[in-house]
């Protein structure tokens, strides 16, 4: 396996890493945890209105790479990021870039549903409130309703908006978190294994939602489930030991992978 990882990348896969008109583009990104290199020279574009899935075995750096797109890695003291990531042509790691507006544009949904210990309404309203997005209370209520509707949760919670968000079921909590993320009107939504804590029915519900949301947002999803990647994403990137091994149309990566490592992973021989 070690020998495989040192093999040069297939030139075809590098060509597919870039796109004509991307929403975000990562160029030669390295990530270090102290002395450890977690991500090694990754270049990847994220298309508009499509779902990009990052797959690979545990510890391959896909979550670390995902967290580069909204600079969540800044919260870890020993973590350093090199290279550039562009959002609509601006480098998000530029000194002049403030993380607050960046994270308003690049929302995130985490592995474990993490609603605030507040009411359902306040959970969704928190983002618009801190960014000053609502002109008055009616407007705010509108935003909350729209976000919950888009997250497919409105019909289930419209009568109990003032009950705690933590009282919902796991799947509902995760949809609440999605509603919270889209309430601030992001361009990109990052999802870090959003279904790993959910049962199959709740998972199906979230996947359905992701497919709907891609009409409006760019979505990057990290997943352990190859079936999920195949179901929801249009592009798939396979990571191994901090390197991007292969990227391409999901249908192609899963049916005729160009790289033998990718093939080994998706056919279940490693991972």
């Amino acid at each position, binding site marked *: 396996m070690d020998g495989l990882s040192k093999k040069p990348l297939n030139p075809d896969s590098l060509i597919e890493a870039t796109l004509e008109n991307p929403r975000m583009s990562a160029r030669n990104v390295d990530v270090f945890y102290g002395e450890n290199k977690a991500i090694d020279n990754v270049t990847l574009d994220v298309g508009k209105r499509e779902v990009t899935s990052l797959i690979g075995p545990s510890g391959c750096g896909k979550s670390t790479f995902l967290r580069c797109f*909204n600079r*969540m890695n800044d*919260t870890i*003291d020993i973590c350093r990021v090199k290279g550039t990531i562009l959002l609509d042509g601006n480098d998000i790691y530029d000194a002049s870039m403030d*993380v*607050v*507006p*960046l*994270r*308003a544009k690049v*929302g*995130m949904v*985490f592995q*474990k549903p*993490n*609603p*605030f*210990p507040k009411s359902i309404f306040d959970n969704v309203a*928190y*983002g618009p409130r*801190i*960014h000053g997005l609502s002109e008055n209370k009616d407007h705010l209520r509108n935003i909350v309703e729209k976000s919950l509707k888009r997250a497919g949760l409105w019909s289930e919670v419209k009568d109990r908006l003032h009950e705690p968000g*933590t009282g919902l079921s796991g799947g509902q909590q995760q949809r609440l*978190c999605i509603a*919270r*993320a889209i*309430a*601030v009107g992001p361009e990109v939504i990052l999802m870090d294994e959003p279904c790993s804590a959910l049962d199959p029915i709740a998972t199906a519900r979230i996947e359905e939602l992701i497919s709907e949301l891609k009409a409006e947002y760019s979505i990057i999803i990290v997943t352990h489930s190859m079936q999920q990647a195949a179901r929801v994403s249009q592009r798939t990137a396979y990571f191994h030991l901090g390197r991007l091994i292969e990227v391409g149309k999901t249908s192609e990566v899963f049916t005729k992978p160009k790289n033998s490592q990718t093939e080994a992973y998706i056919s279940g021989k490693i991972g």
Partner: protein
Amino acid sequence: MNNNNTIQLSKQDNSKIVLSGLSRRRRKDRRLKLYGRLAVATAVTFLIFLLIAIGSKGIPGFFQYYVTLEINFDRERLDPMGDLSVDSLYSGESEALVTEAIYSKLKPQGRSQKKAVKKLVSKGGGEKIRDRILKNPKLLGTTSKIRFPVDDDVDSFLRGYIDRNVPESDRRLNDFQINYIDELVSKNLISYKLSEYFFFGSASRDPELAGIKGAVIGSLMSLAICFIISFPLGVAAAVYLEEIAKKNRLTEFIEININNLAAVPSVVFGILGLAVFIGLFGLPRSVPLVGGMVLALMTLPTIIISSRVSIGAVPPSVKDAALGIGASKMQTIFHHVVPLAMPGMLTGTIIGMARALGETAPLLMIGMVAFIVDIPGSVTDPGTVLPVQIFMWADFAERMFVQKTSAATIILLLFLFLMNAIAIILRKKLERRW
């Protein structure tokens, strides 16, 4: 079994070995349980012992003996200037009226008998008359029955602490006085009532007049100052160290020293307060303001440590959630981290303050041990605090002060229970589940 190649125990063999050791394991379990129960029982016994000891000594201290006397509120003699001013009342003869009232009941003859009878009633009698008149000037010109505190020796005699069979020279009351007390008792003039002086009096050399009000107010003022200073400072320091400061040598050094400060003997903070607040800043001695500041120094490490622990216990997922939708660091801290950590921080603060409430040594250093009769009206008036008052009373020889010491201890314990109860209620109330 020693040789790796021959490990091939059958299932029966294994279960036999397990079974043979089972009774020994069970015995160990039972022994451990027994030790635990013994430890708890010992602790509970000591606690009960302590409560009974303090209760049996202290509860009588809430009461005292009074003698009911008939007072004729003579306008001329009580209010010579006729304007009901404090000056006028103090130039009046209220003390004499009390003495006359007891003479009229007991009719002592001759100098030594009169002297003996005069001593039966507390010196505080005149003050009580003036107090009544100030509250209700209409009393002037009327006659009414008033309960006066008896002298502390009489009180002790009535409680049975002075034995009438002891030779006269060895007891604090002479034969005349004992006879007169018997006469008062037989005339039904002696009563045993809740002590107004204990609850509403201040420091006094006369044990029957001494009370805790001044000390309680001093304690409350000191604690208020302590809270106002230490809570915001402690929480701010904890938030900074836990959430904002980079982890490096300097913050590590600060951390170690905060932990050390929590273990510093409290008297050292008193010396610090004496040197800095009184010596350097020139603040007055014996005032609750400085007392509170010293207690705040002492409480700060406790608050910082407990606040850091509760901030650290806030799930990182909540912080991630807030940061993930673009909350700034400050918004994340003040909208999410601090509210979630608040129950723990308040509990730590109240426990720290409860410790401060019981603290004597640092306050001795800044002069709060002074004998102060006036009840402090502000934090810059000289005053004392409850534990120091207890400390002072414990030093006096009079029998009645012993009771008051125990009684004041009960009050102090009640305050501590109250604070701990508040801590528990606050924690239950503010705690949010997620």
